[in-house]
């Protein structure tokens, strides 16, 4: 069924029912005041009529009483003609139905209707008789009044006046005018009430009908709307419907954007979700123009997210393998999915990115390109490989020596005490070296695993540095290196792990002596403040190249300098030293110049509220 037909079905009965109800209400509203007005009019008319009759009756009585003496005088003097003139004039003047002078014997001497005169001249005398009812006065609509008077020496007579009940038109005009005015005002008032009621009830009835239609499931704005000519209520209702319609449209648009068009523009839920991805996501069309890119893609391609849509992929990614991959995947005849890894060098920053392209529609309409940053993984892989290589090499060297001297001991040592002693000594040294190496590896492993615990206690720094001096005085003297300790008069007692702090200092001082040629100098300078301890270990050694200085704290990393190739070392000492100091909330930094020497600076908070120690304890 078409929508208009449905609307007709649902809206017409509603409109008809609504109009019928309105008409009934209007009829009731009109009938009550109309009946009241009619009743009021009838009552007013009857009241006016009674009043007029009373007034007329009084007027007739007064007229009769006034004329009677005059009529008596005129009869007494035989002025019949004048009497009859008076009677006729009085009847005309006062709009009387009849005016007559009737003798007591019943004969009519004068009458406004001359045909009713029965005696032309008054007799000398006349007797009273039961006068018959005066003719012409039996009409019930007539008001009559009779005044008896005496005619001296002749007899008695009566003056009869009669008038119609209904007043003549001129007499009724004021009353009728008043009644008409009242009726007119009432009619105008009723008309005004009618129009007001119509104006109020029509939109309300229409709104009621629309609500009923809505309850039956009608949702069309065209069907539920009402004529705006029906007043402000209608306009408000239509505005309400329009707001609802707009809200519905917005909701529809929103859902549509979320389900289908979200990848183009706008702040849709899917776009926000894509922006939470660590991986870059680019959607490109068949012409390899970017239709959408998330925030991570902008970062990985070192551009701004708003600048990406609409640009060619080739503008953003210069790597040919990536573009070839994208073209291949966008091609309907090509592969559907593929990935490439590219090394990128931008301003000394090396990155390894993996681009994975997938055709997202059968016809190649658009493809998705996922960008993953593998740089840190590659660095970690390389470090792990280096670790295995170094560990193998470092472990094999002492093991080889141990095996070699054990063989020598077995072959020659039984007979030669000197050889035996030398072999045992070497085996002992190499075993200790192996033990140190394994311990270092274990420590590094513990740090890596986060399981290294600090045995925190009070550490007397003066004792620590005295022990350090004692340990290295002999070695420095052997190499003819000047070893100096510049200590403040008073060193604080700090909280920390004494053995691990000592191990870190051993590494710094031991390295300084190890990499300083004979005749050089190593100076240890300590500066202690209320909150910080700074230990500077400076040497006049071979120095560290800048590219090596950035990496010497990495596990198993050893500088590329040929001069240190023959100097034994595991590449773990500085790693351990810095990690241990960092666990105490401090740090180790290095400044160096090739062939001029190096300065390692160890800074350590002396306050127990500093960070690292607390973290270590918490761990």
């Amino acid at each position, binding site marked *: 069924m078409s929508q208009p037909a449905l609307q007709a079905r649902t809206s017409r009965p509603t409109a008809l029912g609504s109009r019928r109800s309105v008409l009934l209400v209007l009829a009731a509203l009109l009938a009550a005041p109309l009946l009241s007005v009619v009743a009021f009019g009838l009552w007013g008319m009857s009241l006016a009529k009674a009043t007029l009759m009373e007034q007329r009756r009084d007027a007739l009585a007064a007229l009769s009483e006034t004329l009677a003496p005059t009529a008596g005088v005129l009869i007494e003097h035989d002025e019949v003609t004048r009497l009859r003139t008076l009677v006729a004039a009085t009847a005309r003047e006062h709009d009387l139905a009849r005016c007559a002078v009737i003798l007591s014997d019943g004969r009519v001497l004068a009458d406004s209707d001359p045909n009713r005169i029965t005696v032309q001249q008054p007799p000398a005398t006349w007797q009273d008789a039961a006068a018959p009812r005066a003719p012409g006065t039996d009409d019930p609509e007539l008001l009559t009044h009779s005044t008896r008077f005496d005619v001296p020496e002749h007899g008695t007579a009566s003056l009869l006046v009669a008038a119609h009940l209904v007043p003549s038109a001129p007499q009724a005009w004021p009353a009728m005018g008043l009644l008409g005015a009242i009726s007119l005002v009432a009619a105008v008032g009723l008309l005004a009430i009618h129009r007001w009621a119509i104006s109020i009830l029509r939109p309300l009835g229409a709104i009621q009908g629309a609500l009923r239609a809505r309850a039956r499931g009608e949702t069309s704005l065209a069907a539920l709307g009402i004529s705006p000519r029906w007043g402000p209520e209608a306009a408000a209702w239509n505005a309400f419907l329009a707001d609802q319609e707009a809200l519905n449209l917005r909701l529809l648009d929103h859902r549509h954007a979320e389900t289908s068009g979200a990848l183009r523009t706008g702040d849709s839920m899917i776009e926000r979700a894509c922006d939470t991805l660590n991986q870059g996501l680019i959607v490109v069309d068949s012409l390899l123009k970017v239709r959408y890119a998330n925030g991570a893609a902008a*970062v990985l391609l070192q551009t701004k997210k708003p600048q990406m849509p609409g640009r060619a992929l080739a503008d953003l990614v210069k790597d040919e393998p990536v573009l070839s991959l994208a073209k291949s995947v966008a091609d309907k005849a090509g592969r559907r999915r593929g990935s490439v890894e590219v090394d990128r060098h931008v301003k000394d920053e090396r990155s390894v990115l993996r681009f994975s392209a997938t055709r997202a529609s059968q016809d190649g309409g658009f493809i998705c390109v996922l960008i993953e940053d593998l740089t*840190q993984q590659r660095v970690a892989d390389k470090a792990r490989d280096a670790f295995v290589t170094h560990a193998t090499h470092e472990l094999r060297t002492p093991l080889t020596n141990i095996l070699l001297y054990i063989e020598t001991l077995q072959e020659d040592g039984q007979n030669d005490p000197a050889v035996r002693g030398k072999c045992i000594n070497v085996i002992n040294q190499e075993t200790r070296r192996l033990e140190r190496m394994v311990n270092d590896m274990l420590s590094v492993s513990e740090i890596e695993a986060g399981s290294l615990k600090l045995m925190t206690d009070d550490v007397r720094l003066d004792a620590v540095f005295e022990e350090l001096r004692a340990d290295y005085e002999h070695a420095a003297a052997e190499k003819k290196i000047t070893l100096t300790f510049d200590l403040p008069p008073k060193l604080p007692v700090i909280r920390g792990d004494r053995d691990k702090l000592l191990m870190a200092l051993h590494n710094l001082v031991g390295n300084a002596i190890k990499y300083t040629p004979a005749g050089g100098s190593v100076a240890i300078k300590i500066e202690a403040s209320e909150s910080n301890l700074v230990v500077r270990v400076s040497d006049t050694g071979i120095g560290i190249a800048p590219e090596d200085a950035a990496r010497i704290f990495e596990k198993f990393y050893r500088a590329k300098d040929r001069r240190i190739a023959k100097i034994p070392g595991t590449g773990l000492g500085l790693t351990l030293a810095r990690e241990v100091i*960092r*666990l105490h909330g401090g*740090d180790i930094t290095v400044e160096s110049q090739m062939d001029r020497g190096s300065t390692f600076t160890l800074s350590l908070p002396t306050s127990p509220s500093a960070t*690292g120690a607390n973290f270590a304890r918490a761990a």
Partner: protein
Amino acid sequence: MEIREQRHGAVTVLRPVGPLVATDAKDFAHRLAQAGARSLGRLVLDASAIPFVDSAGLTALADAAQDVAQNGQLLRVCGANETLREVLDLTELAAHFEHFQDVSDAARSFL
């Protein structure tokens, strides 16, 4: 305020030394944005040497976290002391950062 820059593998570690206050906030935010863009987002803020922050510093931190969040990540912060962590908790900003105990942990999170 001195801001030291270190490399931890492929990760850039920024280590401000000193209180993060109004006079340093702008420079700090600039350095953070610059380092983040250069290292393709592989950035760690080592807060172990920040004793305290003021409102401007806190704003700079919040802005930096918001910028990073737009790129699908949380700003990785390590070594924050009790004071800083308490400030971040009280201002309900802590959830905008990814907290680590030390630099190594933070750097490993990029794996």
